[in-house]
Every structure is written in structure tokens, then in C-alpha cells.
């Protein structure tokens, strides 16, 4: 228990002493201490007021509740009516399902935003076939004899690049149609189309080779005073993806029958896929040879 003279231990019992909750023996001890200690006696007076207040409040008038059992019963019956018969259909059980559905919806929306509904031109099988036909070396097709009319350095560069084969194929098509062109069109393309199989791989390789050849040829042309289409037109045209078309026409171009544009022969997307299909006519090469380097 506690010592009689210990004010600290007495103060712990003052509330219970005021509420008459202490055993008889301890009640007498506290009483004896309070007779001797004025400080504890003053503290006890405050405790007594607090206990009296609490008891008065406990037994006093507390407002009546405004809601009774009928209101709660109505709420419980309504709740029972709307409670789902199966536990897995209750709202608490459906929360994870709803969260998963929301996440799936967001993911689908994100994917739709990234990939449009219309297929990319580069991925259509038809254009892949055209590219393969344009790029793949074909047996029995003779190289045009007048490629020798090209400046030797350009021929060397194109031969080194391996893109000449593709150019010859397109040129054969032009010659068979009786078209003439006074322009040389080169489309350096950073091939980025996606595809599968050996055809697409061949197209990618051709595009890479052609781009490298064009870059080397352009740097050589700049060194020799060659003007690029950017310098001529000031505003180079952007191809369908990333390529820049460089066009230079001689002064006789206006007198020449207009050559069909490259885009008319093969759709631009195929150029993008294949990398390049330059075409030139013998007339243009002849005139260019007379006037100087055309490329």
C-alpha cells in the first residue's frame, strides 16, 4: 500500500476517496493524512468538487435521444432488401473487380492512343510485295546501257552503295513506258518501317545502303559546288516519314516532257519502305553530261 505521510501516494487515492471507493483501511489512512496535511486537504477539496460534478452529471438530466428503434429497424430492413444474395456480388466484394476493370480500361485507352486503328502503310502486305519487287534483284533484267553516261564518280558511288540495282529496275519500268525524265531524284530515307521476313530485311538493307550512298554523294557534291534541293527550293519537302527529297533540274527541263514524279510510279510509302528508287532518263543524263555534273 502506501505510507501515511506520503503526499504523493495519497494524492493518487484522493479521487477514489472522494467517491468512497477505497477499502475501509485505506479510507482511514487517507483521512488521517488529510487531517495533518493542509496541502493535500486543499487538493482533496478540488477532487471532491470534480467527483460531485461527475456524479451530478451522471444522474442529471441528459437530453433524450430523438431516434428510436423503429428508425433503426427501418434502416436495417432497407439494408437487408438491397443486400445482394451472393457474397461475391456485394459492393465490398466488387471493389477489386471494379478497380481491375478501370486499370484495364485505362491501359486499352493508352494503347489505342499509341496505335491508331488504321494500319500503317509500311505494314500492309501489298506494299511489302511492291518493295520486294522493286528492291529484290530480278533475273533476266539487263542494266540500262546508258548508265555509262553518268559521271563516273556518281556511278562509282552508286555501285559502291549497292543501290544501283534498285535504280535500274525502276529505270527499266520507265523505259518500257516510254517516259523521259530530266531530273534525278534521290530520296535518302532513314528506313524505319517494321516488317518481317526476308523481303522486309532486304528492303531495310537496301535502304541503309542507299542512304549511305546518298550521304557520301551529297558530301562529294557539296565539295564540288553542287547545289542541293534545300539550297534551291529553300523549303525541302518532307517525305512521308523522315526522308528529304533532293531535286535538281537542268535548264532544259522545261522543254522536256515532264517526267512522272516518283510518287506516281510507286507510292511514296513504298519509297519510304524501300529506301530509294532513283530514276533518270538517258536524255537527262546526256544533257547533264554536256552541262556538267548533275549530281
Amino acid at each position: 500500500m502506501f505510507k501515511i505521510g506520503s503526499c504523493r501516494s495519497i494524492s493518487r487515492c484522493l479521487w477514489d476517496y472522494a467517491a468512497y471507493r477505497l477499502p475501509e483501511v485505506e479510507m482511514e489512512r487517507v483521512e488521517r493524512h488529510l487531517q495533518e496535511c493542509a496541502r493535500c486537504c486543499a487538493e482533496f477539496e478540488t477532487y471532491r468538487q470534480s467527483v460531485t460534478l461527475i456524479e451530478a452529471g451522471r444522474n442529471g438530466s441528459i437530453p433524450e435521444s430523438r431516434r428510436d428503434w423503429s428508425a433503426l429497424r427501418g434502416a436495417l430492413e432497407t439494408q437487408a432488401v438491397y443486400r445482394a444474395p451472393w457474397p461475391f456480388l456485394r459492393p465490398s466484394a466488387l471493389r477489386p473487380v471494379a478497380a481491375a476493370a478501370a486499370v484495364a480500361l485505362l491501359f486499352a485507352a493508352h494503347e489505342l492512343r499509341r496505335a491508331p486503328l488504321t494500319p500503317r502503310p509500311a505494314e500492309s502486305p501489298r506494299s511489302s510485295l511492291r518493295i520486294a519487287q522493286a528492291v529484290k534483284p530480278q533475273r533476266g533484267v539487263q542494266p540500262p546501257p546508258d548508265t555509262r553516261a553518268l559521271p563516273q564518280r556518281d556511278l562509282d558511288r552508286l555501285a559502291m552503295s549497292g543501290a544501283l540495282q534498285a535504280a535500274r529496275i525502276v529505270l527499266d519500268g520507265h523505259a518500257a513506258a516510254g517516259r523521259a525524265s530530266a531530273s534525278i531524284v534521290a530520296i535518302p530515307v532513314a528506313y524505319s518501317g517494321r516488317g518481317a521476313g526476308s523481303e522486309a530485311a532486304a528492303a531495310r538493307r537496301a535502304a541503309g545502303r542507299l542512304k549511305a550512298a546518298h550521304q557520301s554523294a551529297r558530301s562529294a557534291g557539296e565539295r564540288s559546288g553542287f547545289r542541293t534541293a534545300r539550297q534551291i527550293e529553300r523549303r525541302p519537302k518532307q517525305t512521308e516519314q523522315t526522308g528529304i527529297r533532293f531535286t535538281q533540274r537542268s535548264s532544259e527541263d522545261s522543254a522536256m516532257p515532264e517526267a512522272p514524279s516518283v510518287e506516281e510510279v510507286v507510292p511514296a510509302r513504298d519509297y519510304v519502305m524501300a529506301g530509294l528508287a532513283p530514276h533518270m532518263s538517258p536524255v537527262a543524263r546526256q544533257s547533264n553530261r554536256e552541262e556538267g555534273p548533275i549530281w
Partner: protein
Amino acid sequence: MTMASTVGGSVQLPEDQLVARCRAGDLDAFGAIYAQYERQIFRHAYFLLGHRDDADDVKQETFLKAYNAMPNFRGQCSMLTWLMKICGNLCRDRIKARLRHKEVLYDPQTAQEFFGADTHSVDPRYVVERADTTEIILRVLSALPEPQRNLIVLHEVEGLSCKQIAEILECSATSVKLRLFRARRLFKDRVESMLNLRG
């Protein structure tokens, strides 16, 4: 815990049988539990919140939650202790919400008694008695921190033992005694300062 409950002068079923019936969806059995503990729950909420409408809401919500959670009641403590725990948690949430939203309490009845036009029609002795007991208690309790307020109400007003309070607060009985001593001392200091202010 088997305990025969008496409501309205008629002996009701023991508490565990009432709980079993409640689990089976018997609303009348739950009505018996409601009738037995409704007043204590309301008083507990009233002393903790200090407002009749809030106490009403908390009381109904307590029994609603208790009915829904009846399958989880394991019977390790008495029904009163369990209900007091639910009620204390709801009151604590409401007090926190008040602190967040800075609510200003307004009790029409109190305002009418103290400031309204019908002040003269109310018995002055009743007003003085109310002001000297319940109102002072509510003011002192509202000045206490929520855990100590809960302890004072549970032990001094509701008369729960330290063991029952320990079950509610999920701590040891020794810890409850220590906290109760501090809460009493703080309550006494608040009462002393309030009485000094009143002269």
C-alpha cells in the same frame, strides 16, 4: 458470455442466444439488444461529443455497424464493451472530422434556454442546475484530449471497470490505471480553473 438480459420488466434471452439470433437475421433479437444498451451508448456519445444530434447519429451508426458486424463478434468480451468500442471509434472519427472542418456546434435547445426569447418561460432553477452540472461537465470534457475524455467517461460516467476499459482500449489494466490517474488529475485542474473563473 452468458447473461440474461431484462428489458421492460420481462426476462429476455441470454446474450449469446440473442447474438445467435441476430446472426440469423432476427431483427427482434437485435431490438432486445438495442433496448438494453441504447441509453448507455447515447450517453457515452453525448458526453464525448457534447451535442445531441451528433450523439444520435453516432448511436444509430453504432448499432447499424454492430448488426452488420455481428458475425464477427466472437463473444470474448461483453456486448456492452463491444458496443462501447464501436461507439468510441465513431466518436473519435467525428471529433477528428470536427477538427479538420472547424465545425461550430449549435444546439437549438441550449440556445433557446440561454439566449432565446423563451428564456423566461423555462424554470430558472432547471437552467441553473443544467449549467452547473451537465454544461460544466461538457465544457470540462471538451477541454480534455480525446483519449483522456474517453477514459473519464468510460470509468466515471459509465462505470466500467479497468479491465473492461482495457478490453476496449486494447491495453493492460495497469496502463488503464495509470492513464486514468492522469486523466483525473487533468479533469480536476480543469474543474478548478473553471470554478475560479466563475468566482
